[in-house]
């Protein structure tokens, strides 16, 4: 009974409220009347928008937006899908604008670094733009086998591998890699020595049966290693430690000689080892 009474009260309330709402809103709205001004304003606004200038403006804006979107879409598709276009853009647009080339020049008492803006200093030069060193396309290098002992390296390359028994203080074996071409029987072994915790101190020993590897053209001094003629040469090493600063050049050394049909090369990338030290290392190969 009470529940029915409650429901009835709610319905009563709703009906009365709806009645009041209709009446209140109708009376409230009565005071709002659309004057002739409103209709006139709307007509004027519409007529203005129908005018030629506006139409041209809208058309021009739409056309510009559509052209821009279309160009972006086509450009994105072309650059995204075509590696040739990306390569062309890199060579013709990105590289001349963004790349900086440093040229290392030998002077009487050392080396100097000169900054070149690619494309400006060598317009249309293409290939030999770095003092005879051509730009080469770098392909992903084949990973060479790594060896833990000289015997293992020797078994792989097929020629004797002699390693130095003397090393300057602190130097240790870092890695030993090598490979051999099956067709020509030519091969090489590359051994890296270094000082732990001093990344700059690296000594590289390369042994190869390819005789062309021995070239004395850039030699600065001829010396003897176990009675064989050896060539002591220097080479510049450019170091870029900070992208915002000019690079520096230090001098590294190589010692090359031939012994029993094999060419040996010791390369000191740190430039800290003297000729005497290098000769001592070379003499200790066993």
């Amino acid at each position, binding site marked *: 009974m009470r529940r029915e009474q409650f429901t009835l009260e709610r319905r009563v*309330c709703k009906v009365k409220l709806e009645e009041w709402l209709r009446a209140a809103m109708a009376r409230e709205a009565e005071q709002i009347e659309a004057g002739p001004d409103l*209709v006139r304003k709307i007509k004027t606004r519409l007529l203005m928008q129908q005018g030629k200038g506006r139409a041209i403006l809208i058309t021009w804006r739409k056309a510009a937006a559509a052209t821009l979107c279309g160009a972006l879409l086509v450009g994105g598709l072309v650059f995204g899908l075509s590696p040739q276009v990306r390569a062309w853009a890199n060579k013709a647009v990105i590289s001349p604008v963004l790349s900086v080339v440093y040229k290392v020049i030998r002077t009487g008492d050392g080396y100097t670094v000169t900054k070149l803006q690619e494309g400006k200093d060598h317009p249309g030069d293409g290939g030999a733009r770095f003092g005879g060193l051509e730009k080469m396309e770098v392909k992903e290098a084949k990973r060479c086998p790594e060896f833990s002992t000289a015997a293992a390296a020797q078994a792989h390359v097929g020629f004797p591998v002699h390693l130095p028994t003397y090393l300057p203080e602190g130097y240790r074996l870092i890695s030993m890699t090598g490979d051999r071409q099956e067709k020509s029987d030519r091969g090489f072994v590359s051994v890296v020595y270094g000082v732990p915790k001093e990344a700059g101190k690296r000594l590289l020993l390369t042994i190869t049966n390819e005789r062309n590897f021995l070239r004395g053209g850039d030699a600065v001094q001829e010396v003897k290693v176990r009675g064989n003629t050896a060539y002591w040469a220097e080479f510049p090493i450019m170091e870029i430690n900070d992208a915002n600063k000019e690079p520096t050049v230090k001098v590294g050394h190589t010692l090359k000689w031939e012994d029993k049909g094999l060419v040996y090369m010791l390369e000191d990338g740190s430039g800290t080892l003297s000729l005497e030290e290098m000769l001592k290392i070379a003499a200790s190969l066993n």
Partner: protein
Amino acid sequence: MNVAPLIKRIQGGDWQAFEVLLEQYSGKALRTAYLITGRKDIIEDAVQEAFVQCYRKIKGLRDPATFETWFYRLLTRICWRLTAREKGTVSLDSLFESDQGCALRDDLPGDAFESSETKRLVQQALGKLSIPLRTTVVLRYYNDLPLKEISRVLGCREGTVKSRLHTALKQLADELKLIAPELFLSGEADAQRAIHPGKEGLQSEA
């Protein structure tokens, strides 16, 4: 009124037909905008914008018979947008009218006072509803749109419209009970007669 032939003429590019539409709907649109926003200072802009959009988009209206629903949809969206933009400002009309409403109490006699006071109280309660609830109430009780059409105007389900109306009425009742409880005492008896019109008569006859 069947508005479909008029809309077809407008869709065919008849400018005069649009002028007729303007004359017919501008007043109702203005009043609807006023009830939704509660502000006189922005309703002209809202209605102008609604008719401009209406003229631009009317060719895309597939069924001319649904013009009213479609137009109210445009109008409510514009009203909501303008109200949101003007949220930080207070309408001078509302300030002025609240004072004027209080002054009427002593000036108006009898029935005029009662209806005016009730109106003022209901308007005061209505003004406290959120915009979506107030819009639903306006479309239902001022524009007399069925629930289905309101759901199309507001872009929601019919159930949501029912729920909004229920919530709005409850809020209004609660608000009115607080500010004018005497309204409900007399209202209950009236409504009982409205729901059971024969019962009272039979009882009195017995």
